[in-house]
């Protein structure tokens, strides 16, 4: 057994981990000619903190009883999660090369066939209710396990999320933490243009959540906030992580087109060089 993130752990820091999973993701999306690189890069620092500092999960025993649960609700941004799980040792890193290939378990929306993945998503608005169910059982078991759920901003258009957002504070689910990758861009435009979420934090607060707004690329701030779980106030926590879509690759940052495009050989080399510098 090799439980991650025990207090005694001395694992590589989140910054280095984030750099590595960004690079894996760029190579995977390039090789597969796949999409969704922008939303993968915006959440890379969040995953890096979760998998190097927070989640109590075991790469040698992915179904370990009493583990923390991580639910990726924005299932399209799966390449970077696969990369993070590979970095943690849930499977050999070489398997990332099969992403989206014929016969691979590494599908283009997150698949629970992959060791370390809790649930498959892809249709938006499904992750939060499932994470709530996991948090309810963990609380009943009293084993200290927590449920983390990563939402995109665009999927906050889905009514099913707001059903869950109403439910969790009513049931005082203090072992539930939602993280919103608030990169301000969704599938077909900016959040402000398509369906404005503002005032976003106030909405959560008025529903009864413990709301924390941070820079989603500040790994120290992420670690500080996510370490404070369960929340002290008998409320679920939402971390509104202000992020930049395409973060880390200058020509992809804040560009809607990188929700869809796959980098050419030249752009891949340029992106990897930027990450390495």
């Amino acid at each position, binding site marked *: 057994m090799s439980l991650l993130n025990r207090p005694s752990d001395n694992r590589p820091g989140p910054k280095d981990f984030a750099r590595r999973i960004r690079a894996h993701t760029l190579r995977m999306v390039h090789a597969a000619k796949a999409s969704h690189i922008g939303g993968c890069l915006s959440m890379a620092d969040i995953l890096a903190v979760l998998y190097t500092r927070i989640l109590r999960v075991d790469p040698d025993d992915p179904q370990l009883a009493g583990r923390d649960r991580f639910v990726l609700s924005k299932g399209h941004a799966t390449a970077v999660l696969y990369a993070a799980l590979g970095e943690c040792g849930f499977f050999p890193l070489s398997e990332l090369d099969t992403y989206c290939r014929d016969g691979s378990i590494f599908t283009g929306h997150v698949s629970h066939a992959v060791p370390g993945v809790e*649930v498959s*998503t892809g249709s938006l608005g*499904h992750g939060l209710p499932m994470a709530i*169910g996991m948090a309810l*059982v963990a609380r*009943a078991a009293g084993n200290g396990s927590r449920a983390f759920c990563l939402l995109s901003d665009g999927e906050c258009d889905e009514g*099913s999320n707001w*059903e*869950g957002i*109403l439910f969790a504070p009513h049931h005082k689910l203090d072992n539930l933490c939602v993280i919103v990758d608030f990169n301000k861009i969704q599938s077909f435009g900016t959040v402000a243009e398509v369906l404005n979420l503002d005032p976003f934090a106030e909405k959560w607060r008025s529903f009864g959540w413990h709301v924390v707004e941070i820079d989603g690329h500040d790994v120290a701030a992420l670690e500080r906030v996510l370490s404070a779980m369960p929340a002290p106030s008998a409320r679920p926590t939402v971390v509104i992580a202000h992020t930049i879509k395409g973060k880390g690759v200058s020509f992809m940052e804040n560009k809607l087109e990188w929700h869809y495009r796959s980098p050419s050989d030249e752009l891949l080399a340029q992106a990897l060089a930027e990450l390495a510098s």
Partner: protein
Amino acid sequence: MRTTFIETLSQAASENPDIWLLCGDLGYTVLEPFAAKFPDRYLNVGVAEQNMAGIAAGIALSGKTVFIYSIGNFPTLRCLEQLRNDVCYHGADVKIVAVGAGYAYGSQGYTHHALEDVGIMSMLPGIEVFVPCDPNEVRAATRLVATSRKPAYLRLSRAGEPNLGSAEVTDLRKPRVLRQGQEIVILASGPIASRALQAADELAKRGRDVGVVSVSCLKPFDETLIRKLARDAALLVTIEEHILRGGLFSLVAAAIAGVAKQAHVAGIGVPEQAGKTSNAGSRDALLDAAGLSVPAIVATIEQFLSNL
């Protein structure tokens, strides 16, 4: 049926501490005994079926057996994608229990009539589908799904349905003979089987040899037995409180397609409501209006026989 369900579920829950029950703010005067006995395993999620289905999947994926309960179309069609992705794709141990099969909610109107649910739910991968005809079958079905460790749909009517066969239901996955007879075999799913029995009595008075079989398990479907009946009978008639598409008739027709010597198959069901408004009426009145009165069933079968 509702009472039998909750009594049986409460019994199962007292034997198995991993059984949970969620409802979508419905179940007044039905679910209270369970809620009182197992407050830590009962949740009224509120009027939010998508959330209920997703939460149920999350609970089940943490090792529990979860029942979700609401009226007809609400825990089924309203949250269909959650059932497809969150429950069935993950093989989560969730049981969907709908009350108000067919026209059971009578005058409440079309929104409360479950007429397409069986076909739609049967399409979901890996789910088992049960449409019990009487309280004895409800008891057997509830016991069965409580230990099956896989997704199931349980379609209940409401209250006061009579028992139609013996109390002993040995294997609910097999069709259950309610009335012996071989020349004409009426296959019925759900409480509409009581009308099938009455129609059979009337046809018997006219000299026909008529059997009635309750087919409560629509998935997995016992095609072997249906094929055997089709070899021995002159006419198979299906009766269901559901549209013909996707229900019992579709399953029977598919099961015997390609069987060399087979009976003719005739389907009796509810017409699609396409763009027509639904009138008020009791379940009985609505069934009569839909062509499912006992005399209409008898006449329809006579008509089929005259065409053989």
